C-alpha cells in the first residue's frame, strides 16, 4: 500500500514538473464586444485581436521562461515591451523567475478609437502564477487577474502597447 502511494506521489510530481516545462500552446481567448465604442469593431479586427492577444501571452510566457528578450518583438511594443524587457533583465540579474501559465482570457473590448488606431480591453485572466528562485518553486498560486490592455495595430497584427494589472473589484 505504501509503495503504491509513493508511486502515485512520484507520478504526480513528474506530471507536475513536465506540465511546467512543456512549451504551452496559445491559451483560450474569448472576446465580448457588446460595450465597445465609439467605433464599431470590424469582424476581421475582432478575429485578429483574439488571435494576437493569445499569441502575445504565449510569447511573453516563453520569453520569461527562457529569458529571451527577442521573443517579445513579435507581439508587444511601447511601454509594454519596455516593462517586459525590464522584467527579463531583473530575472537574469537575480535568478528569480516569474512563470505565467495562463489558461484562459475573457476579453471585454471597451474602447476603439474613431480612427481605428487604438483599442482598450479588459482581460479577466485565469492563470497559475509561479515564482521560482533557481529551480525552487517559492510560490504557486492559481489566480484570476484583471488586466487593462491597450492594443495598437502593427503592419499585419495587433500589438500590446500597455498591460496593467488591476486590483480585484475594479469595474
Amino acid at each position: 500500500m505504501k509503495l503504491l502511494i509513493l508511486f502515485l506521489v512520484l507520478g504526480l510530481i513528474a506530471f507536475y514538473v513536465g506540465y511546467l516545462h512543456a512549451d504551452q500552446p496559445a491559451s483560450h481567448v474569448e472576446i465580448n464586444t457588446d460595450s465597445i465604442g465609439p467605433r464599431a469593431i470590424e469582424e476581421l479586427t475582432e478575429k485578429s485581436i483574439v488571435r494576437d492577444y493569445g499569441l502575445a501571452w504565449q510569447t511573453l510566457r516563453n520569453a520569461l521562461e527562457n529569458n529571451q528578450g527577442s521573443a517579445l518583438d513579435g507581439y508587444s511594443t511601447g511601454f509594454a515591451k519596455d516593462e517586459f524587457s525590464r522584467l527579463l533583465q531583473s530575472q537574469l540579474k537575480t535568478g528569480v523567475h516569474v512563470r505565467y501559465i495562463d489558461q484562459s482570457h475573457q476579453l471585454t473590448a471597451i474602447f476603439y478609437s474613431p480612427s481605428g488606431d487604438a483599442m482598450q480591453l479588459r482581460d479577466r485572466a485565469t492563470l497559475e502564477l509561479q515564482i521560482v528562485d533557481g529551480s525552487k518553486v517559492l510560490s504557486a498560486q492559481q489566480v484570476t487577474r484583471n488586466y487593462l490592455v491597450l492594443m495598437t495595430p502593427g503592419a499585419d497584427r495587433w500589438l500590446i502597447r500597455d498591460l496593467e494589472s488591476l486590483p480585484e473589484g475594479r469595474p
Partner: protein
Amino acid sequence: MSIRALLTIFVVAMISRPLLAADLQVPANVVAGDDFTITSSNREGGTFYLIGPSQVGKRNAVSGSEINIPGDEIKNSGLYTALLCSGGDCASATFYVKPAAPAKLSLLVHPSRVRVAEPNAITAVALVFDRFHNLVTEPAQVEFQAIPGEGQAISQSRAASNGIAWIRLTSGKKEGPVKVGASVGPAKELRVVRQVASDACNLRIKPEWSSGKFYVSTDPVRDCSGNPVPDGTVISFTKTDRTGKTTVDAPVKRGIARVQMPIDGSARILVASGVVTGNELNVTGKQ
C-alpha cells in the same frame, strides 16, 4: 485514509503552501514611486522577494520586522507579490500599487489633413499617464483645445475613463493649420492638422476671344467657404455644337481653369468639377 484523500491533501498543500504563513502586512494605499514599509511578524527575517509587473527583486538576509521598499522598486503600477522566505517556508502578500498623479499625455490626432467645414472630421484621443508612464485609471478631466491660425481657440473638457479621453471636432471654415491640443495637470500636447479647401462651389465660366481663337475660363475657383481650391483640381468643360459633344478636362492653375475650344456655329458650354456644376454659356462662332 483513502488514496484519493491523500492525493487531495498533497495537491492542496502544494498550492496553498505560501498562504499558510501569510504574515506580511502591506499598507492599504501604495503609490508608484513612493517609499513604503512592509511589516512582518517574523522577526528572524529571511530572504525577501518583491515581484512586480516589470521587475523581480531579491534581498538576502533581511532582518527585523520592517522591510523598507524604496520608491525606485515600485515605479510601475499594478499587482505586486511580496515573499519572505525563511527555513523553507514563505510568507506572501499581494498588493496593488496605484499610478501616481497625471503627468504625461499621449495624444493621437487624425487625420493630419482635412477639408474645411467637415463635421466631426477631426478626432483626438488622449491617454493619461503618470511620470512613470503608468496609465492613470482614476478619473481625470482632460482639456481639449483647437487653436486656428486666425480666430479664437475653442476648448472643451472631457472626463477620462480608464485613462482615455477623446473628442470629435468639426474642421474650421478657413484653410490653414489648426493646432489640436490636450492638457491635464502639468502635461500638455499639441498636434497640427492642415485644413484644406473643400470641393469647388459656385463655378462660373466666361467666354474670351483672343487672336481669333475662342477660350473659356473660370472665375477664381473657390469652395463654399471662399477658400481657393488647390491648383491641379480638375475642371471639366463640355461643349455641344453641331459636330457633337466634346469634353475637355483642365487643371486649375493659379486659381483658374482655362481651355481653348473651336466653335462651329452656335454652341452650348457647361462646366463641372466633380459633382458640382456651374453656369451655362451659349456662344456663336465667329465666321
